[in-house]
């Protein structure tokens, strides 16, 4: 009987604990999906550039994360955003679901579309190299 009581909690808890990963694992996964070697150079370009396809208030990743991913950024509401580079913030790229959620939202805001696996691999390669 007991496991019947535990089951709902296990189901509820699963999204938070599961899917832990690391920048290296994730980079390997995105690169494999893309079928190509990641390039930190291209990742930096994508991150720094001003794009036009997305929402006009957020033309670039740097709008919120600043041009220095080792420094804290800021959301449009004034709320601080922790640094993106794993060297400055070890929590980064350790939860697959979290990473996917934010790539999904942020790429849509800036580019107006989802990022490809290759683009994600590039950005991650650059951030992890800092």
């Amino acid at each position, binding site marked *: 009987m007991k496991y019947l009581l535990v089951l709902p909690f296990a189901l509820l808890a699963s999204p938070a604990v599961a899917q832990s990963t690391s920048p290296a694992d994730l980079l390997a996964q995105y690169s494999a999906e893309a079928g190509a070697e990641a390039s930190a150079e291209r990742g930096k370009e994508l991150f720094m550039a001003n794009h036009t396809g997305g929402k006009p208030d957020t033309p670039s990743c740097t709008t919120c994360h600043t041009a220095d991913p080792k420094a804290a950024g800021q959301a449009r509401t004034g709320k601080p955003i922790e640094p993106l580079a794993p060297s400055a913030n070890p929590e980064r790229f350790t939860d697959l679901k979290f990473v996917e959620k934010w790539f999904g939202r942020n790429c*849509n805001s800036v580019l107006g579309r989802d990022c490809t696996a290759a683009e994600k691999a590039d950005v991650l390669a650059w951030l992890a190299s800092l």
Partner: protein
Amino acid sequence: MTDATSTQFAPQGKQVLVWDIWVRLFHWSLVVSISTAAVTGFVLGAPWIKLHIVSGLLAMALVAARIVWGFLGPTHARFRDFLRPPAAILSHLTGGDTGRHLGHNPAGGLMMLGLMAVVGLLAITGLTGLGGVLRTGPLLSLPYGIGEAGLELHEVLAALLLVMILAHVAAAIFESRRSRENLVRSMVTGTKERRPGDHRGRKVISHPRIALTVIALLAGLTVQVWQRDTGVPERAPVAVLDEIFAEECTACHLAYHPSLLSGAEWQVIMANLDDHFIEDARLDDETNARITEWLIAHDASTAQTRPAHLFANERESPTGSIAETQAWSDLHESLAEETFQHAPVYSKSNCSACHADAETGWFSPFQIKIPKETSK
């Protein structure tokens, strides 16, 4: 008024004590407390509410003590000395009342009674608003509507009190001229020059010890009543935030409390997360459903707070924005537009920059502090 007013035995020009020290202390303390309450209430607004309430309660306490002294104090402190029947007041006002009154004249006495009554009513209506609207103090169980009505009446009474004070000051100046004496100075020194034909009133002695005892008893009773109704009021905004809500909805901004908006507004927000205030805040369906359900279960209709009542007024087409409601603009009209752009505020939506209790949904005026502008 055929009271023993003859002054033939008194030497001319002798200064006699008219206002005892307690009457004078009462008068000038009341001036200070009412001025403080007026400036904080009319000019400075919500961030000064603590001082406003303290000065208002002090005025009320002073009036209560003065009422006791009106029964137990010396000659001219007594109500009996200056509260006159309407006919006597009318006769005084129409010039049928010859002779000078050492204490308050009949019209002045009526004004005293009026001022004390209005200060008392201001305290009662203020506490009504504090209870029903801000949900604190001895009357925190009152319904919101009564609290709101109390505050409206409070404003009307405050304006009335100002007019009465102006009339009182004008009358003091007018009387000083007419009777060639300085009444304001008398209220400082307590003395007046005795003249022939004065109405000197019936001499009585004061009972300071009895008065002090009565005042102490009243004070004790007040403290008892004040502490009777405390604790968490009914229909308080939900105190514990849903875990998933707190995780998903605080990445970009503070946790906007569910009681700030109606269920309809929350539904619009949650149905449009992919285009959320020009940003993408998409969630998976399961998470979205859970948060939506929780928000609606604790929406504005479940809470008795000032923001819940002000922001929840149904818009014809809900947008989910709080800072774009008319009520929000009205509340913040005293603030310059730039205040919201400077660091560390950055945005009107950054409520917690100025409201320390923003995430509780209370937005108490006791918790407002505009941060100093910083560089960056």
